[in-house]
């Protein structure tokens, strides 16, 4: 029975391919595991001779001290608050920019724009999303701060530093606007056409239809996109590292410089402190904070998005 034999060979060969592909797919789980292991083994508990960050600096000190000065004195000061406040400040400013702009663009493209106009606008947003982070950093530092913010605030009699979290927040907001626009547009378009017609038939203006029917119907999906954009802003690195500077001040004033968690990590990895020094190890503690923060926001966003899908299926 020659055909049988041939078949068995091809089957065996297919099983091999199947396993190779399975390994590829499993690699992503391995990556996550590796990230978690690397962060934990350097920040929380180090096996072997090395000591992890939290074995030297207590979690209490990490969460309650208001100073972040890794190289200050023999022990250094490791209070996460300046970095956390800097990060949140940039992310909140970014949201203030991107939420209205992104949602407005999403509503315009799904409810008002002519298909041909939409075909032209979509690539523009894609280009905006595709511009590298460093470019936005340069734009903030060399254009927005000196040519927009400085004249504006000097009119008000306020002084703005060269490095400031306002310009960083603005460019990060510009960066994540396309994300909100495209995700929100998708969920708004998923609202059935019949719902819009029903609203029109009840004597609604276009505003009534958008603001009272379509957006509320898509609200959880839209919220999910806001959260995703927020987490992206929290994890944004290069633009912020360039525009906000590297001074971990605990301040809420957006006109002054700040250091974010990501900014510190770039700074720490380029510095020439020894690989085992505490200031180097503090990078992992910051990294695990960043990882936990972005992951939990993303999980929340995904959960909200899944609930939204259930409504329409």
């Amino acid at each position, binding site marked *: 029975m020659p055909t049988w034999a041939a078949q068995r060979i091809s089957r065996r060969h297919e099983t091999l391919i199947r396993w190779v592909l399975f390994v590829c797919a499993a690699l992503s789980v391995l990556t996550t595991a590796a990230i978690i292991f690397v962060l934990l083994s350097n920040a929380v508990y180090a096996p072997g001779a090395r000591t992890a960050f939290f074995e030297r600096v207590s979690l209490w000190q990490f969460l309650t001290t208001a100073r972040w000065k890794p190289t200050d004195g023999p022990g250094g000061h490791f209070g996460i608050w300046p970095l956390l406040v800097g990060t949140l400040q940039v992310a909140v400013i970014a949201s203030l920019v991107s939420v209205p702009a992104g949602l407005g663009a999403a509503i315009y493209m799904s409810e008002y724009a002519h298909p041909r106009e939409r075909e032209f606008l979509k690539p523009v947003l894609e280009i905006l999303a595709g511009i590298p982070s460093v470019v936005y950093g340069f734009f903030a530092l060399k254009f927005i701060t000196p040519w927009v913010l400085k004249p504006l605030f000097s009119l008000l009699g306020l002084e703005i530093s060269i490095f400031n979290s306002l310009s960083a927040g603005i460019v990060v907001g510009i960066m994540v606007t396309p994300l909100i626009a495209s995700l929100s547009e998708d969920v708004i378009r998923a609202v*059935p056409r*019949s*719902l*819009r*017609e*029903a*609203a*029109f*038939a*009840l*004597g*609604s*203006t276009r505003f*009534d239809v958008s603001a*009272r*029917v379509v957006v*509320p*119907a898509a609200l959880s999906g839209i919220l999910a996109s806001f959260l995703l954009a927020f987490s992206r802003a929290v994890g944004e690195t290069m633009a912020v590292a360039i525009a906000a500077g590297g001074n971990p001040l605990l301040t809420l004033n957006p006109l002054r410089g700040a250091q974010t968690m990501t900014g510190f990590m770039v700074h720490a990895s380029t510095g020439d402190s020894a690989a085992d020094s505490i200031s180097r190890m503090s990078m992992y503690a910051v990294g695990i904070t960043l990882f936990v923060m972005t992951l939990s926001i993303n999980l929340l966003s995904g959960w909200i998005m899944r609930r939204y899908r259930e*409504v329409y299926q």
Partner: protein
Amino acid sequence: MLMGSSVSGRSVPPSVPGVDRNLDTSGHAAAIDVQGMNFYYGEQQVLFDISLKVPERSVTALIGPSGCGKSTFLRTLNRMNDLVDGARCTGLCLVEGQNIMDPAVDVVLLRKHVGMVFQKSTPFPKSIFDNVAYGPRVAGEKNRAVLAELVESCLKKAALWDEVRDRLHTSAMALSGGQQQRLCIARTLATNPKIILMDEPASALDPASTDRIENLIGELCSNYTIVIVTHNMQQASRVSHQTAFFFRGRLVECGPTMKIFTSPVEKQTEDYITGRFG
């Protein structure tokens, strides 16, 4: 007269209460008066020279095979076709004596006055109360007591009040299909229309729910002018005073329902109602 007798020999199902199928509507004022309407989607003409009078406070059924233009015609009556790109309409369409095709007509006001119920029930993903209160709210009504009273009276008119009075503030999506459709009728009533357009309102429902909707139409027609599109001829014969038969974008025949179903003038009409095509 062989043909005539054979048709009149067929039985027509009894009408729902409140509908007199032999009603002479010539004395009624026309709520809608369409004269010489042509309708185009882009280059394609879908309605040809339609002229039709809809008497006030009566039910007019539009019947015909699918694709005959009856839904399109219905949607021109409150200008829902404005939402479709490339739709174009010529001719006169008088609603209470005013040509609604006039570009100066305000469609928002028109749609408030000419309500519409769709084939698929379309509750907004909000509470039952908010669904019914939607129309008055967008029209600027904020007083909660007025709204509550209005919601109650509309739900009563739509024969839904007893089923939902205890859960007005729960999601409308949880209602059954028939209840959702009656909710949509209540929601339309809340904008205080004079005319209600219904686009196959019962075609997605089970027989019991269909029955309730038909009875509801019988009750509503003493206060509202109703135009209903249906592909179900039994339904048309049960609920309407007047029936109009559409075929390939033309209005073939229009007259009192009893006459259309027993002794139609046109051969096409007869073929259709006797089920020879459709």
